[in-house]
């Protein structure tokens, strides 16, 4: 049997057109072009066919049809993902969920919102704002990214240390299974009988089902929020200040660090008022009741000064607070102006290893002869090194990828993870072989099989085959820099 189950493209298009309106089925190259990649544009593949259902019934009908013919399906939200999770399959249907974009209900008393997967992250908070409520997870792409994609990736943001990831902020999802069946997972209560399938499906990168509805928890907007900016002439001192804040019993709403290259890029781009000469800055947001925040601001200021900050500034008003954050949130595009291309990494480490990891990243930067700017969710140990390169120079993309791979392997060596919030997708599939052994990968494949026995959902992503790992492992041994030679290999 061929990979597409034997059905030809024309025949499948005809059958899809019997289920969906003509403008919801795209099969001509010029129409398919916008769907070639997600936010990781270095990876491109034109889909066979793109379908854009506008109802749950249509999603189910498409899934049933594809299942019958053994055609792979790749779900896509806004296409802002950074790991190639929505990279199309050459003989598969790309299932775009952007038309399912309705806010179905806001319950201000029960503090929940029921929304379709194509609703943008920020649109949920906007819809809840009249009730003094908001949706907490705020990935940097929140203007554009959709909640369906957030569930698929278990997205975080700058406020996760205090408010958690997507998995902590959703109550229920409706999931279409590969054969078209609709399952309700979770409930509007705080738990559900049986296994915690909600946790399992969140962050499963479109491998286990297609999310067609999400019920999220809404939180009251804090009475007050303050942001402090602290400058350091030494990265390690900034790192210890983070530990000191947390040891003092303060959980900031956000705690971000940027290194000098990132500071300068962000300042030139956003004019946020950052000190351009600082080796590192910390942005610390404190929120809560007015009295509580005032008390914590005083305490954190003391800690920062005690930790050797050369300057501590409290945003004077809402406008300055917004400016401080604007610099941080525009760090990626700002760094993007320093070079024709940049490659954003997403490793996590136990926070205490930060100074060592930054030193090693700088060494790697020299070794690979590529600049790197570091932006860091310092509170929860999530690093975003931005590797600068020029795709038009022969070999630079490959070097950037090798550099990135080395950073991820360094994170694993430090007891961390190859991805904190961007997902594995296609990008980090080889590094999965470094983080997990054969037994775990086999267990992941068994989980996949329980949901999708034919392997039709997003095939080839997120969890590598053992065969792939064997090839990757031998390649690495030749390189002579295998981390953890004592670990199980296959």
């Amino acid at each position, binding site marked *: 049997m061929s990979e597409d189950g034997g059905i030809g493209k024309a025949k499948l298009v005809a059958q899809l057109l019997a289920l969906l309106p003509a403008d919801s089925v795209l099969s001509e190259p010029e129409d398919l072009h916008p769907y070639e990649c997600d936010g990781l544009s270095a990876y491109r593949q034109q889909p066979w066919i793109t379908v854009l259902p506008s109802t749950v019934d249509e999603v189910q009908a498409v899934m049933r049809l594809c299942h019958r013919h053994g055609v792979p399906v790749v779900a896509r939200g806004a296409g802002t993902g950074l790991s190639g999770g929505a990279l199309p399959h050459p003989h598969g249907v790309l299932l775009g969920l952007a038309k399912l974009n309705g806010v179905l209900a806001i319950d201000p008393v029960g503090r929940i919102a029921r929304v379709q997967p194509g609703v943008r992250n920020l649109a949920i908070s906007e819809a809840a704002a009249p009730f003094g409520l908001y949706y907490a997870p705020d990935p940097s792409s929140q203007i554009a990214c959709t909640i369906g994609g957030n569930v698929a990736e278990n997205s975080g943001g700058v406020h996760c240390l205090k408010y958690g990831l997507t*998995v902590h902020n959703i109550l229920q999802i409706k999931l279409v299974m590969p054969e078209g069946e609709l399952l309700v997972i979770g409930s509007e209560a705080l*738990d559900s009988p049986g296994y915690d399938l909600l946790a399992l499906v969140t962050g499963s990168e479109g491998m286990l089902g297609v999310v067609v509805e999400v019920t999220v928890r809404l939180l009251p907007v804090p009475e007050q929020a303050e942001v402090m900016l602290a400058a350091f002439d030494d990265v390690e001192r900034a790192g210890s200040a983070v530990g000191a804040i947390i040891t003092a*019993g303060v959980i900031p709403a956000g705690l971000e660090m940027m290194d000098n290259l990132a500071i300068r890029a962000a300042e030139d781009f956003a004019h946020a008022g950052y000190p351009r000469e600082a080796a590192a800055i910390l942005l610390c947001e404190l929120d809560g009741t007015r009295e509580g925040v005032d008390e914590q601001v005083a305490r954190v200021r003391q800690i920062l000064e005690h930790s050797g900050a050369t300057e501590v500034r409290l945003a004077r008003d809402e406008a300055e607070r917004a400016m401080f954050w604007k610099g941080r949130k525009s760090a990626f595009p700002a760094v993007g102006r320093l070079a024709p291309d940049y490659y954003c990494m997403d490793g*996590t480490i136990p926070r205490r290893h930060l100074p060592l990891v930054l030193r090693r990243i700088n060494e790697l930067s020299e070794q690979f002869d590529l600049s790197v700017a570091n932006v860091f969710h310092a509170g929860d140990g999530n690093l975003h090194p931005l590797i600068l390169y020029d795709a038009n120079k022969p070999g630079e993309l490959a070097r950037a990828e090798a550099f990135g791979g080395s950073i991820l392997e360094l994170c694993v060596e430090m007891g*961390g*993870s190859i991805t904190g919030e961007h997902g594995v997708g296609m990008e980090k599939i080889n590094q999965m072989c470094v983080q997990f052994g054969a037994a775990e990968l086999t267990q992941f494949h068994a989980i996949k099989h329980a949901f999708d026995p034919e392997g039709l959902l997003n095939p080839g992503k997120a969890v590598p085959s053992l065969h792939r790992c064997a090839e990757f492992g031998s390649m690495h041994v030749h390189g002579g820099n295998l981390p953890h030679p004592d670990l199980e290999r296959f």
Partner: protein
Amino acid sequence: MGGDQDQTEVLRQQVTEAHAGRTPLRISGGGSKAFYGRPIEGTSLTVGGHRGVIAYEPTELVLTARAGTPLADIEALLAAQGQMLAFEPPHWGDGATLGGTVACNLSGPRRPFTGSARDFVLGCHVINGKGELLHFGGEVMKNVAGYDAARLMAGALGTLGVLLDVSLKVLPMPERKLTLMQACTPTEALTQMNRLAGQPLPLSATAWADGQLYLRFSGAASAVTSIPEHVSGEMLPKDAVFWAELRERHLPFFDDARPMWRLALPPAAPQPEIAGDWLIDWGGAQRWLASDEPADRVRAAAEALGGHAALFHTDAPAVDFHPLPNGLWQLHRRLKQAFDPAGILNPGRMYEGL
């Protein structure tokens, strides 16, 4: 902490043998939650001896301990550093262990405001039903590599794997707390709980018992001290006793010979029209009911409101969980098969046939 022991190999050996011989295993820790689920037969697999804190980094807000470590030891260790398990786990007995707490996914009154046991799980080592040692998640706050099998273990009652150790996120203890009481009906209490939970207040528990609404506030000293200016109510002295008795089900309410139900409901759902006595916890999301009404009626009422109901038998050490709809049941069976193909890990503990 005395008695630290790594029994990984012994436990793994036992599971491997049980897998080969298709011998069902009955997993136990301290025995405090032996009643939580259906009574099952099987060779005893005791995890209580596999104990000890493996790592605790207060600055990282992470603790890793073996499954048999007494919960009380962990709480004491954290308290000495001014930290806590923020899901306020019920012990439900003297021997409560970390493994049992996570396997049952039990959380106390703070649950609606800071999260459940599952929410604080960062990673774990487990032995699956084939005797394989697996490591899921890790010791970092954010980790989306691979499926989240670590959180899946929370609440799985050991039916997918034998928990060996768990890494948990911990939080600083609030500097100050206070509890206010207001006399009211259950319906008034639900209205008030939901109204306050929608406001930016440092709430850490809300409950209604025996005609009184209890509101607990926790946080920075200045934030808590000023609460009586914003919220009315009589201050409850020595309030820790009340919350501990609620969490441990030691309040007089729980001393009832009638069948005891736990209803998990959307917090703003009205009180179900079921005859019996009620106690409301978790800001309305967890409601206890002592009632002689038929099981079908209680379950249907919970379902109609978007929730579910578990029956805590008072005449036997057993709990019956809410049945699953067919599609989910089939998926549960396939997942069980994926982790435990021979069906040897606590078979039948959660549901017959799982």
